[in-house]
Structures are given as C-alpha cells and as structure tokens.
C-alpha cells in the first residue's frame, strides 16, 4: 500500500516536472516569436509591478488624507496627478492595481485549467455515466445568467475577490472541459494508446503518460486566454462595485474616476490610466495565448488574431458585463447633460 502510494507520488512529481518543463519550453518558443516576445515583456513588467509595488509606487495609494493635494494635474511629483475626491496619487494606485488584476487573472486561469482538465479528462476518458453527468452539468451551466447570480452571491457572502474568483471558476471550466473532452476522445483511440493497453497499461499510466501530456499545450494556451478574459471581467465587476471595497483595482479606479467627476473637470488622465493598465494586461495575455495557438497550430493564419481577440472576449459573461457597463455609462452621460442645461 505504502509502496503504491510512493509510486503514485513519484509519478505525480514526474508529471508536474513535465508540465513545468513544457511551460519552460513554451516560454522559450514565445521569446523567439516577435509578437510573443512583446507579450512576454509586458507580462514580466506587470508581474514586477505587482510584486514590488511598495518599492515602485512613490506614494501610499491608500492615503486618503492629502486634502492639500486634491485633483492635481500630472507633474513630476505626481506623474499621473491625484484624484479629485481624496487626493490619492493615481500613478501609485495604478501600480497597486496590477496586484488585483494579476492575482484574480492568474488564480482563476490556473484553477480553471485544473478543473477543466480534470472534468474534461474524466468525461472523455472514463466516459459512461461520468461523461453524461459532466456534460449535462456543462449544458446547465451555460444557460445560467451569471451576472445576476454574481450580484446575489456577493451580496449574500460579502464582496471579496475570493468570491469573484470562485464564481469565475465555477462558470469558467465548462468551455475548457468540452474542448479537452473532445481532444481526449481522439487521443484515447490513438494506436499508441492501444499499444500501451495491450502491454497491460493501467488507466493511470495512460492518463498521465499519454492523455494529459497530449492536452497540456491546450491547457497552457487556454490559461493565458482565460487570464485575459478574466482580467477584463474583473475590471467590469469592480467597476460595478462588486469587488472588494477596500482593495485598489483598475475597475474600481474607473468607477471612482467617473463618480469623482473626472470627465466633468477634464481630468482625462484619471480615466486613461486604469484603462491603459487593463489594456496592457489583457492585451499581453491575449497575445501570448494567441501566439501559442499559432505555434501549436501553424496552419492557422495570424492575420485573424484581432478578430480572434474579439471572438474570445465575446462570451456571454463578458457580454453581460459590457452591457451593464454601457448602461452605467449612459446613466452618467445623461446626468451630466442634465446638469449642464
């Protein structure tokens, strides 16, 4: 029993090493690809910002007591000025905002990769009742309206990024599970799998040595693309005030800028700053994901990549968030028009 457990652990360790090696290999390939290199550099920059935020940010972004420094325009002492309402340094907020975006994006992306892979592999490889159960669950998940549910859940259990991540993962694994399942169905009928079965391979052997490595490239690629999608969705939710009210995030910065009258006073940098943050983060992860797809699938034409970005963003969840952001924006605009007249 113990020996078996040890062997399993060793196998698992080997697999993890294999996955790490696969990731390292991908990074090298990305670096050699000009577009991928851009994405890689930006992501590295963002990661550095997130980790060393206290060293990089010139001011404490949480400091709301600077009455004298309210609504400053950009200058050398405040690179992006300060907020009109509380006098926080916008550049410092921008740097700190990286943390929320990256953590939510990466944690969600990786969790979805795990859950989606497990569900997809079980559905595809084990099949039978497990397959039916999982695929029915996926179908049901696809028709649940997620935004209202998010609002209800955050109101019930408190607004936190953990909640947001939980919801993202809960609804995010379904698409991936589907893709993985169909790939597994192809792989498990490959003749090399049958040869292994003939030699007496266990299900674990086939799963860990043939099936999982066969889908790993898809997982890595998908993680990058989910990160991008999740970061933009997170910004949307934070904008709607569903994020952690005490943390600084780009979405919340946007909401504050709008509420604080950035448009009214012409402080465009207050709005542009978080916008650029969101753009860079989403763009770089998207780039990496798409370049990976290109590397793995050389027949695919790269010209379609912008189209693909839109197609990728075009899933229901994002649509809902965008739609409600639109509503809010319209509301803001009509208010403004009313005040002026």
């Amino acid at each position, binding site marked *: 029993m113990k020996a078996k457990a040890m062997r399993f652990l060793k196998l698992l360790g080997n697999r993890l090493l294999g996955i790490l090696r696969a990731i390292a290999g991908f990074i090298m390939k990305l670096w050699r690809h000009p577009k991928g290199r851009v994405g890689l550099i930006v992501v590295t920059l963002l990661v550095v910002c997130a980790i060393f935020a206290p060293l990089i940010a010139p001011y404490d972004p949480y400091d709301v007591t600077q009455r004298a420094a309210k609504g400053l325009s950009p200058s050398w002492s405040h690179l992006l000025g300060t907020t009109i309402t509380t006098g926080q340094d916008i550049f410092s907020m921008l740097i700190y905002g990286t943390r929320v975006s990256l953590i939510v994006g990466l944690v969600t992306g990786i969790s979805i990769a795990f859950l989606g892979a497990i569900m997809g592999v079980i559905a595809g490889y084990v099949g039978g009742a497990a397959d039916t159960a999982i695929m029915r669950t996926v179908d049901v998940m696809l028709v649940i309206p997620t935004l209202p549910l998010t609002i209800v859940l955050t109101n019930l259990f408190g607004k936190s990024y953990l909640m947001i991540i939980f919801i993202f993962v809960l609804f995010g694994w379904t698409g991936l599970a589907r893709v993985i399942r169909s790939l597994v169905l192809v792989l498990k009928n*490959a003749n*090399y799998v049958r*040869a292994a*079965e*003939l*030699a007496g*391979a266990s299900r674990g052997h086939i799963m860990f040595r043939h099936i999982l*490595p*066969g889908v790993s490239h898809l997982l890595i690629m998908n993680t990058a693309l989910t990160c991008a999608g999740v970061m933009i969705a997170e910004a949307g939710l934070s904008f709607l005030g569903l994020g952690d009210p005490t943390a600084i995030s780009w979405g919340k910065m946007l909401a504050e800028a709008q509420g604080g009258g950035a448009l009214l006073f012409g402080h465009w940098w207050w709005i542009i700053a978080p916008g650029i943050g969101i753009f860079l983060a989403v763009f770089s992860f998207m780039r990496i994901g798409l370049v990976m797809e290109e590397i793995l699938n050389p027949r695919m034409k790269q010209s379609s990549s912008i189209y693909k970005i839109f197609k990728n963003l075009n899933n229901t969840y994002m649509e809902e968030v965008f739609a409600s952001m639109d509503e809010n924006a319209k509301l803001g605009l009509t208010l403004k028009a009313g005040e002026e007249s």
Partner: protein
Amino acid sequence: MANDKTREPIMVLENLSVDFPVKGALPFQKRKLIQAVTDVSLTIASGETFGIVGESGCGKSTIANAMVGMVKPTGGKVIFKGKDLFSLPREEFKELRRDMQMIFQDPFSSLNPRFNVYQIISEPMFIRGGSTPDEMKARVIELLKLVGLSEKDLYRHPSDFSGGQRQRIGIARAIILNPDFLICDEPVSALDVSVHAQILNLLMELQEQLKMTYVFISHNLAVVKNLCDQMIVMYLGKVMESGATKAIYANPLHPYTNALLTAVLDIDIDNQRERVLLEGDIPSPIDPPKGCRFYQRCPFAMAGCKHVAAPLVEVEPNHFVSCHKINGFPADSDSAENRTPLRADDGQV
C-alpha cells in the same frame, strides 16, 4: 513458413460474432446493429502464419481486436493458449495478453509524437515493471539493431523518421516483451511500395528467429500468397472460403475469391486495388442479407442465395467454402425455384 499439422493450436475462435450498436436517427427508433463479424470460427496453429483477406470494412480489424481482447464479442469465444480470454479474471487476462502484440496499419498514429524512440520502444517493459533503466536501454538498443535501426536513433522523435522507419520502431515495440502471437494489421498498406518488401522481409526474419505465430491481415493477395500457411477470405463479416493458402490459390472456389484473384493477376501492380470484376460497392453491414452475404454482387447468384444461409463446407482436405453454387442447397431448400439464376446473362455459365 512452417506447415506442421501436429502443432497445438495457439488461438481458437469459436463462432465469434461482434455487433456494434448504431443509434437510430430518432430516439424511439429501434437500435440497429452493425454486424461487423458474424459466426467466425478458426484455429491458428502455433508457429504458423495465418492470413485474413477481404475488402475494406469486412471486419478484419474487428477480428484482430477481439483476438487481443480490445473488443468484447457479442457471441462466441476467443481461446488463447487454451484459456477463454473473456472469462479470465482481470489480472490474469492482462498477464496472458502480454503474449500478444499488434503492429498497426498507420505508422503515424501508432507512435506518440511526444515520446522519443527509447520511450516508445521501452514502454511495454516500463509498464510491466521490474526492469532497471539500464536493462531497458540495453534491450532497446538490441532491438533497434534487430529491426535495422541504430543506437544513434535512440533519442530522436517519430517526426524525424520515414514511414518505413516508423513501422520498424512499431515492430521493435511489439516484440520487446517476446510475445509469441503477433497480429500484423495491414502492416505495409500505408507505406511506399518501395519499402513493402523490406518490412515484410524483416517480419519474416523475426518470425524465424523468435518463433512467433503471425496473423497477417491484408487486402493484397500477392503478399498473403507468399507469407501465409493458412488463410480465410472474408466478406461482410463472414468467412467465404478458408483453408491452406496453397489449396485456395491452386483451386479458388468461391466467386468472391475468384474475383479478388483475377483482380490481382490481371491488373498491373499499381492498380491492384481496383476490383474490375465486381459491380457495385460492398453493401452496408447493417441488416446484411439473411442468405449468402455476397449474393448482391455475385455473378452466379441464384434466387435461393438471397435467403438460404450458406454454411462452410469442406470440399477437399483443409479447404472450406461457403457457396451454394459449389455445395448445392441443403436438401430442405433444394428446389428448382431456388436454383433459378438471378442474373440472366450469367445463367448459362
């Protein structure tokens, strides 16, 4: 090419049938069955080469899969080394199955593209366990030389090799555990004609050296003629003719065998797959004819062939054929009506 009648049988199929369910288009429709293999019995003696011949879709691979226990038969038995494969406990089944291996038709999907040659060939040994990496490496190098590759290829990947070389890698993997029963499912049909002979010769040499029993699946009759001791000719899941290869080639009785042979002999080697003599395609194995399965395309078909089943009958020692024209109808259905030819132009023959 051993032809020793006294040898004991290594593989016996007893009335093997394999049906695959196909879903009807509508949920309440009756489920239909593809009768991939119907009532096939055969005995393969240890050390011989047994040929299975027939057009695409006639159930050759399904028989092979049933022999190695990858497809569960709907009826009949698979008896390997005296043991009924499908009634064994799981562990014993796995153990017994190690003595069988398979060489696949498509050398591209039979090797994992992410593995290197060492990992591919050593995998069965790795799965069995109990060998150190050094032992496995030594064994793989030995096998590489045996199949005509070199030690230099050890850490290369399948994409670096040609089809013929990949097939050699597949062969090395198949024989690493010293199986005594090897199924070659169209081992050369996906390869360049120029390497056919090399691979076939390699297989023959290995058989000589390692004393293996071969099942050789092919739709190339020339290959079967040269390699096989015994053979069966299949059509739509049923055996049409079976027996010693020599007897069948010397005196092909079944119209289908005849058609296959003329096609090979009449047309030059490049076009040998064209079957000029047979009209129409092989019919669907869903709801096959009740009588002789070949009657729709048979130039000599009679009215009775449609609904009277044609049993395999031994017409000369070790030569069986399933045909009403050769064997005549059984007494209870032997009427003039049944004997009327279906096709007017061929009736006089």
